[in-house]
């Protein structure tokens, strides 16, 4: 390749680090710690907000991936979640309401060498930006989308969101919302997301594991984080996330393992016809063999879709990875077409392009 051609495809003016990225081995070489990812900006969320934990776990897992800081970009939309990039000592772009996935799509297409995270919320991702979530997922854009779901509009001070419960009374719905909520995980699955997971702001270890899994996934990763807004929707998830009840009211998904939950590890999910039901091992002749076994790699997302519909109080709330399947990424498919075009017709020649079609010469 000529120097000119090289620079055409290298917008960093040759500042490409030599080492390969996204490998645990590389993480050993680069040796970054959480501190390296803390920016000099003062964090300004309400005291007690779930966002603090999400930020901390995000910073903690960043060294895992083997990317140098300058190769990581955080892109956010509008809402409380949108401030997160300011607090990450990486490249960051706080964009406009709902549109972060579009910028991430263009960035990743132009710069496949970067690791791109999208930070969004329930209003940003599912209301104003719903279309872009849908299309970034179906294209399998290699971005990691973390959606903070607090079931309320926090930054605008307490209006109903697309995930607010039916009938919820808020500032904008004083006698209750008449809108049926949508389920973020169902939406992501319907949009053909290749990685879909859920975790909880206060479950720090699980949150780190989930972010780690998302980061290593090649393709669109959608992670819903149940996040408490202690000012406008305090305790939205308390009924099943509190320490005392969570084992009985949440289902931690593990690939290849039967769906067992409960303090006594004796409750499970059984499939009756097309519907899941909660059963107790040892009662009515139920054994572990009667339980559904989780398969995050299933080609068709039937099981994941079913899990996405299960919620407290009818069911334990599933957390963990619902779906993780390999699929070619958007940026790779674009690169492949470019490579094929060069292979078929050689590198583009501007002069030839200008003189293409019928020409005539005047002496």
């Amino acid at each position, binding site marked *: 390749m000529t120097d000119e051609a090289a620079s055409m495809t290298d917008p*960093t003016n040759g500042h490409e680090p030599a080492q390969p990225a996204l490998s645990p081995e590389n993480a050993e070489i680069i040796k970054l710690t959480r501190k390296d990812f803390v920016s000099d900006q003062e964090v300004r969320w309400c005291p007690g907000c779930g966002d603090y934990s999400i930020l901390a776990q995000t910073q903690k897992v960043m060294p895992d991936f083997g990317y140098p800081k300058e190769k990581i970009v955080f892109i956010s939309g509008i809402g409380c979640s949108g401030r997160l*990039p300011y607090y990450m000592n990486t490249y960051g772009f706080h964009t406009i309401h709902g549109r972060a996935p579009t910028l991430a*799509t263009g960035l990743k297409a132009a710069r496949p060498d970067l690791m791109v995270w999208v930070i969004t919320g329930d209003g940003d991702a599912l209301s104003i930006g719903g279309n872009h979530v849908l299309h970034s997922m179906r294209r399998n854009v290699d971005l990691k989308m973390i959606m903070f779901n607090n079931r309320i509009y926090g930054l605008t001070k307490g209006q109903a969101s697309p995930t607010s419960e039916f009938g919820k009374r808020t500032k904008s719905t004083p006698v209750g919302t008449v809108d049926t909520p949508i389920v973020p995980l169902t939406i992501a699955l319907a949009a053909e997301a290749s990685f879909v997971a859920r975790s909880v702001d206060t479950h720090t270890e699980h949150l780190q594991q989930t972010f780690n899994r998302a980061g290593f996934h090649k393709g669109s990763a959608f992670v819903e984080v149940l996040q408490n807004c202690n000012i406008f929707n305090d305790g939205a998830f308390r009924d099943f996330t509190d320490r005392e009840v969570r084992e009985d009211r949440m289902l931690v998904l593990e690939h290849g393992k039967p769906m067992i939950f409960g303090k006594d590890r004796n409750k499970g999910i059984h499939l009756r016809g097309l519907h899941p039901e909660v059963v107790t091992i040892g009662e009515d002749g139920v054994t572990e063999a009667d339980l559904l076994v989780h398969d995050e790699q299933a080609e068709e997302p039937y099981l994941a879709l079913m899990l996405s519909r299960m919620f407290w109080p009818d069911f334990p709330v599933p957390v963990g990875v619902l779906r993780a399947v390999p699929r070619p990424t958007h940026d790779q498919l674009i690169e492949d077409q470019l490579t094929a075009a060069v292979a078929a017709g050689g590198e583009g020649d501007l002069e030839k392009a200008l*003189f293409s079609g019928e020409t005539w*010469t005047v002496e």
Partner: protein
Amino acid sequence: MTTETRPAEPEVRDLERVTIRFAGDSGDGMQLTGTQFTRTAAVFGNDISTLPDFPAEIRAPAGSLPGVSGFQISFSSSDIHTPGDAPDVLVAMNPAALKTNVGDLPPGGALIVNSDAFTQQNLNKAAYASNPLTDGSLKPYTVFEIPISTLNERSLEGLDMTSKQKDLTKNFFALGIMFWLYERSMDPTLAWIEDKFGKRPAIADANQRALKAGYAFGETTEIFHTHYRVAPANLGPGTYRNITGNEATALGFLAASKLAHRPLFYGSYPITPASDILHQLSGYKNFGVKTFQAEDEIAAIGAAIGASYGGAMGLTASSGPGIALKSEALGLAIMVELPLVVVDVQRAGPSTGMPTKTEQADLLQVLFGRNSDSPIPVVAPATPAECFDYAIEAWRIALKYVTPVVYLSDAFLATGAEPWRIPELSDLPQIGVENWTDKATFQPYARDPETLARRWAVPGTPGLEHRVGGLEKADITGNVSYDPENHHRMQLLRHEKVARIANDIPALETHGPTSGDLLVLGWGSTYGAIRSAVERLQAEGRSVAHAHLRHLNPFPRNLGDVLTSYRRVLIPEVNLGQLLMLIRARYLVDAVGYDKVRGRPFRIAEIHEEAERILGSLASRSSASNIGGRAADDR
């Protein structure tokens, strides 16, 4: 094969310029017919200018008035600027095409009709109470009734095709007649058919036979007593090709990418009349051009901004309705100060309006259609060929000043064609920008002292990790700031950065006297009509000049001086006076407007007449020693 030998020698007359309009049903292939005639005339060396005119409906009901599609081409042995005010020859393939177009044909004009199509059913569809071929209403014209469908079908006898399939080739029969009438070689079109339908020999054969049969018809029948010759134009030395505005625009962006050594990323959502830019750029994959058909207009610009953020040349294009959707993201690009080019191929009307028709009424939208003061440079090519130069110019500004730029085209420029002298690569301007890499001196909003461009570092640059976004930035550091004085300073800086581009663009040139009675000022696709009208007035001895703006923000430095060098300023626009409002507001000059918004370009005669009217009022005012100042009679 050759078409040069001819049995009998009919009378040949030399003409300087001919304007032909092909009109038929949108299923009749009129755009193709027009395009083929254009290519042939262009390759022959004529100067050409075209005006395709088609409905938004892909196939309106056959034979109906809304389904009529037209293509006008003017070709000449001298330099021309417009597709012609009125056709000399109208080819009407059915009654609906006759009805919608005959009003434009001047008395004495030639009218070629496909008499087979004048059935009672088609006459009803065109709402003709009586048959115009027999009721005498076409008396003012020289009418040639030719049973094109029958003759064509006869020429295809023996081919294994249905009548309906055969009828689809009748446009080539009509084209063959026109080729004979204007002494054109059939070779380019025969070759084109071979190339296009080579894999389907039966169809290629039918179309070629139809073309030759039409030509032979012209040659052997005595229906035409004369045929005509329009000599090649003296366009100046160089190699030429025929090009539409959209083609030139796409090529200009490709060239800009090569010149700036940065890959082009094109995010776009399909919209008339901009989609052809996407189609063309998607064919440049071997140049490293990445095209992205987005889920909507907002995603298209969002992805383009994302690509620019990564150091590529992020580009998006649309038309007015799409630009409206993009405006919030355009504000973001202004705030984060990234290079970006946004193309607006303007079309007619608010809302959906008339998608395939031309207008230049988005000027104020692109200048002011965003929240707050959000300055953006705007460039506008004047002719289809010039689209190439201004695509590069848009990128020159975007990269040098690290700013979004709007490139204003319109449906007339986009689909109209003219000969383009292909430039030498060495004649193209040097454009580009270096990304900041020095850690010691980096601040995201530190600026170049001369251009005020901010220091632009892209992700991947070690040690320069920083955050940008739509929140107001602190000067220099780029941190989020709500400081009142800082906001005031940043608003002024953003404004001043764009204003200073005026130091870096050519002065406005005037064609004609540098001072005098009347200046006709235009922008965009009105160029041809204005230039032709002004040249006509100059030939008549009037004191008139033409100036044409290509930079609409900022304006050229000398614009104020130019405006005040004439007694009167006339601004014709295909809108209701948008440039006029800017000129009057900014320069306190009592310019007058001349506005026609019909979805079609100005005719030369209209501008000529309006200019004459103003010159007349100036003369009468002078003679009456009217010292009352600005006269109300100007408008």
